[in-house]
């Protein structure tokens, strides 16, 4: 049955009017597309925000204790000062050299100055990540760059720095024609001038950084015996599952009793109502004290966090069941137990199911707190560690994973309603996709006449 396009359907903004299917899909795509687009734009279009410079080549200043290494971010106001200070130092070294009264430094200091080329080597793939202190490789790098055998692609070296590389190589190769740390010069080498690219603050990593970091984290086995990301994920799921399962197992029967019998309602609900205002995290110390530091107190926290809400919400849902259905069953001979099992339970089931979906969302919130008590574990434990180290590009993939897990479980549970409750108004009215229709036709639970 196709509807004739009427005037009211043409409006984008009609109160309580459904938009045409195409427009609805478009808007759904936009609801994800717009935030993504904002993120991408802010990340890759330099003049929108980018208040910082991300250092690609750094230098240590004399007598300044704050050390910036490649990869650090400095504000755009500070960067020129930084660069000028290093230049000034180089100028002094050169002046001294011209006056035939060169500066001397420790050999160790010169080695350090040479090592500042390492990040460039890593970025170009000439050095491995763990070779940043491999002085022989670094020696060769200086040589090859100075002699023009290598040209940096990943980071475009400024003319100034190219000259410094040549200048330093002359000094270095004179003292140590082949690699030999003992022969390294003690006359001060020039420092590389800090170079960097415009970037956003560390807490807003760009999409590709997040994807790369996530890819790495989820595909490498960490050393020092830490769990892999997938183990962490399973651990988190485990805690939320058991916490919520105990909550349901104890809470649902109690709630249905409370909603059905005034006796249980008056006996339990006032206390439950009181208890739910005491924030669950405040009990975490207590839980750790008598349940140990393993998973038990974490599961307990998720349980306490959801149980009391669950009892109240579901007791209320139970009370909302139409009384006339119970009365009708009574006039058909149903007694107390049959009323509970055959009328109240199936009658509230669709609403109970929806309540549980909402409560499961809260359980995720409690999970985050639970994983931080006692021993920090699971995904939140990882977020906590990396967050304190400012590795936000590694934090975001985990946050997104949690979000996606919650979102897709909810979508799945929502979709399963078609299977479980084909008789409800919402399900019968809802437009059904191909998959849903297939599912319904494979079960003989509904018959369609209209």
């Amino acid at each position, binding site marked *: 049955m196709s509807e004739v396009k009427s005037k009211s359907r043409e409006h984008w903004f009609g109160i309580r009017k459904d938009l045409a299917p195409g427009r609805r899909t478009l808007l759904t795509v936009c609801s994800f597309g717009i935030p993504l687009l904002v993120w991408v734009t802010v990340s890759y279009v330099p003049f929108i925000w980018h208040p910082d410079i991300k250092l690609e080549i750094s230098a240590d200043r004399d007598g300044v204790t704050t050390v910036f290494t490649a990869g650090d971010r400095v504000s755009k106001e500070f960067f020129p000062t930084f660069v000028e200070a290093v230049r000034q130092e180089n100028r002094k070294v050169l002046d001294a050299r011209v006056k035939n009264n060169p500066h001397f430094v420790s050999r160790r200091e010169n080695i350090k100055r040479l090592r500042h080329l390492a990040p460039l080597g890593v970025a170009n793939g000439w050095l491995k990540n763990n070779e940043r202190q491999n002085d022989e490789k670094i020696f060769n790098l200086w040589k090859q760059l100075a002699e023009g055998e290598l040209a940096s692609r990943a980071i475009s070296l400024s003319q100034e720095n190219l000259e410094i590389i040549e200048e330093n190589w002359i000094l270095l190769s004179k003292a140590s024609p082949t690699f030999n740390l003992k022969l390294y010069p003690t006359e001060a080498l020039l420092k590389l001038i800090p170079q960097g690219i415009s970037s956003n603050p560390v807490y807003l990593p760009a999409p590709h950084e997040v994807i790369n970091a996530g890819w790495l984290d989820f595909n490498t086995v960490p050393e020092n015996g830490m769990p892999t990301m997938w183990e962490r994920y399973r651990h988190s799921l485990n805690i939320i599952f058991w916490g919520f399962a105990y909550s349901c197992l104890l809470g649902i029967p109690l709630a249905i009793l409370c909603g059905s019998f005034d006796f249980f309602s008056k006996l339990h609900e006032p206390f439950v109502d009181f208890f739910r205002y005491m924030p669950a995290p405040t009990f975490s110390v207590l839980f750790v004290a008598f349940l140990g530091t393993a998973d038990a107190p974490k599961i307990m926290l998720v349980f306490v966090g959801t149980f009391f809400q669950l009892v109240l919400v579901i007791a209320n849902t139970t009370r909302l069941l*139409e009384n006339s259905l119970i*009365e009708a069953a009574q006039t*058909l001979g149903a007694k107390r137990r049959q009323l509970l099992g055959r009328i109240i339970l199936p009658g509230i089931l669709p609403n109970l199911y929806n309540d549980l979906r909402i409560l499961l969302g809260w359980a995720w919130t409690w999970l985050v707190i639970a994983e931080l008590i006692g021993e920090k574990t699971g995904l939140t434990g990882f977020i906590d560690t990396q967050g304190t180290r400012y590795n936000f590009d590694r934090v975001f993939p985990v946050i997104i994973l949690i979000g996606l897990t919650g979102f897709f479980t909810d979508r799945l549970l929502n979709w399963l309603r078609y299977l479980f409750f084909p008789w409800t108004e919402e399900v019968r009215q809802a437009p059904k996709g191909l998959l849903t229709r297939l599912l319904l036709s494979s079960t003989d639970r509904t*018959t369609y006449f209209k």
Partner: protein
Amino acid sequence: MPPSLELPSYLSQSPEVSERFEKLRNRPVKLKVENLSKKFDTPNGEISALNKINFQIFRREFISVIGPSGCGKTTLIRILAGLDFPTSGNVFLEGRKMEGPGAERGMVFQDYTLFPWLSVKKNVMFGLEIKGLGKLKAEAEAMEWLDIVGLGKFADAYPEQLSGGMKQRVAIARSLANRPEILFLDEPFGALDAQTRSSMQAYLLKIWQNVDVTVFFVTHDLDEAIYLSDRILVLRANPGEIDELIEVPVPRPRAPGQFLTPEFLATKKRLEELIRPPELAQNDEFPMVRLTEVGDEVE
């Protein structure tokens, strides 16, 4: 053909009709109501919804209750079905004192009250399974009842897929499948359109003629009450008391054609007198509300 203005008294019965009532009165008493009163405590004081109600119903009798809105019809039927408790007085079913609801007293509500999560067939099977009938037997019996109300091919549909009239037929089948001794119906056709309503009345009459069941029927539709009932219980409001218990002089079997017979009209006239106080009809001084004249002086 306009009905003659000279109507007989509603009390005069033809010999066949009075013979029938004679026989009815000799049947065993199915339901006996004794000094039934119901008071509600409200913020505005006590409401006497029912006051000292006494009557009895004979086996396989069809009895209707009418009365102005708020006179206590629903209160009465709910007490008889055991869903509410009376303030005082007793209800006896074949001499047994009744307390609480039970399968021997079926009830059909105005708002259908089918169980939405059960298919039509399972709805009808509900009472049978409670009774302890095996699944197969219950199913066979339910199908029989669905065929009687003409809904056999909707057995696997969910209630929400049916129209109002169909739902009410399922509700009736569900109650009758349980073989209640007495069936209570509270304005069961009140929410239906006129067409469906009259066919439902015919259905109910036919079922009643073929099933051993006593019917207690609440309605506010006078034609419906006369067309269906043996006797009509007229209630008065404030306090709810029995105004009159009328023996309907219209002979059986009934048909819609009888709506214009003298007995029918005489009964209807009497009922109208009873439930519509005359002073209401005269008060037609209506305040003039902004009325734009059409200008052609046609009223």
